[in-house]
């Protein structure tokens, strides 16, 4: 179980994340929604320690991960895989090497620096790629793939990390609707099959409603809603997106609820 206790992050004068507390159990697919700048990205980045919280604690299965250093920190980062909006692959490396990055945290340094991986790891990488229909691209440079394909490679990399927790920061914001569906279905499958918590930042309410078992809405760094997607009433959306969004979104909400 993932537990956040009063997690806070400040950038100069602004408080990006303001005392956020939440718990998230296995098998939950949590969509985090909110306007740009509401603190969604910062929240996810603090969980796998790409960003350091200024206050509060983050616990995984009761263990505080906010103080981890060096080897322990790298092990933690490996166990909570992150998927990014811009995929964050190495475009000049081939696809399989990008996927194998998922195991570098536990591999000895010297062979890794020469891009040498055991055949068993390479086989695992290919299986993960094949699960996403991407095995045929294994020896292609990642930079030559389309956005949707690159995001699938990034998911395969995350799977090779054998994660206890999956974080996805706007994973479909740069993708067309079809690819967005493919990627969201992949995340859903990971959530169910591996029985791990999945936290996804989203800016599309439709996607949040379709795939998430639970939605957390943030505004100005704080949680303003936490519940099932059905609970996203016009009044809630007005609090999340401001008065204007609440008004314009209302008919859509009604239409979808019907």
């Amino acid at each position, binding site marked *: 179980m993932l537990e956040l206790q009063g997690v806070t992050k400040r950038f100069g004068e602004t408080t990006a994340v303001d005392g956020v507390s939440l718990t998230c159990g296995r098998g939950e697919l949590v969509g985090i929604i909110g306007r740009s700048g509401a603190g969604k990205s910062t929240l996810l980045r603090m969980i796998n320690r*790409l960003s350091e919280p200024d206050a509060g604690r983050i616990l995984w299965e009761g263990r505080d991960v906010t103080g981890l250093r060096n080897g322990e920190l790298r092990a933690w980062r*490996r166990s909570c895989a*992150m998927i*990014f909006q811009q995929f964050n692959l*190495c475009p*000049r*490396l081939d696809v399989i090497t990008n996927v194998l*990055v998922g195991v570098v945290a536990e591999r000895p340094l010297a062979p*890794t620096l020469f891009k040498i991986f055991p055949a068993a790891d390479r086989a695992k990488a290919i299986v993960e790629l094949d699960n996403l229909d991407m095995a045929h691209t294994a020896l292609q440079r990642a930079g030559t793939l389309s956005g949707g394909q690159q995001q699938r490679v990034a998911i395969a990399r995350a799977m090779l990390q054998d994660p206890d927790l999956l974080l996805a920061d706007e994973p479909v914001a740069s993708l067309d609707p079809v690819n967005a569906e493919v990627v969201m279905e992949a995340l859903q499958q990971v959530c169910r099959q591996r029985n791990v918590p999945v936290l996804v930042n989203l800016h599309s309410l439709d996607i949040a409603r379709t795939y998430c078992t639970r939605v957390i809405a943030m505004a100005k760094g704080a949680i303003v809603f936490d519940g099932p997607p059905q609970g996203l009433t016009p009044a809630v959306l007005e609090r999340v997106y401001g008065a204007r969004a609440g008004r314009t979104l209302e008919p859509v909400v009604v239409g979808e609820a019907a």
Partner: protein
Amino acid sequence: MSSAMERALDVAPKAVRPSLRARAIPPLAVVAGLAALFAMGADLGLSPGALAAGAGKLGRFLATMLPPSDGGDPMRIVRALGETFAMAFAGTVLAALAALPLGVVGAKSVVAQPALHFGFRRALDIFRGVPALVWALIFVAAFGLGPFGGVLALAIADVPGLAKLYAEAIENADEKPIEGLRAAGAAPPVMLRYGLLPQVAPVMASQTLFYLESNFRHAAVLGIVGAGGIGFELEERIRVFAFNEVAFIVILYVACVAALDLVSQRVRARLA
């Protein structure tokens, strides 16, 4: 006045009617530039008469160049060309080896200390102002005639420029792949090997090749001050007015430079 005009004038008046000043500046700049050009030409004594007088002499030199002659020992010239290429190659390799650590230290993203970074870059700029020819004069005086001084001169002259380009290659690298590696738990050396190196290596290789091209072109000048190679051969023949042999060397040299440029450009295009 039409409503579109009224509204546009209301929202962005300067975009509808650019000010007189904004419109007057380009033609005034052209006039000022031409005036400066003529003033400088007069200062340097660039007159049609001087051109005509020199052109006659130039024509006589050109006539003595024909037909080009190998002077009876073409292999000597080929060897000298080889020596010049070797000088350019050795100078470039030495410069690249020295510039690599300097470039890493000079990258803003590596040394996040603005004052240090500024000082380091200005120091490189100062050294970049010293041309290879000056270094060659110094090194030939110190180490004697021959390619050794030439190689050192090329190497030293290239280091600041290459270091600056390497530093910029590192600064321009996309940080997203590196963040992807950090998020997967990669150790710092792995982040550099997988995230940074594949991005910067082709850029650096391409810039180094460009320096090799330019060094091969410039190495002839170094020979003239006594630093060996094809320039040395050229200088000897110019001194005795053997312009037919000069022509032979120049033609061969130009062909070699063109061939190297062609190969290097192909390789660089593939790297990019």
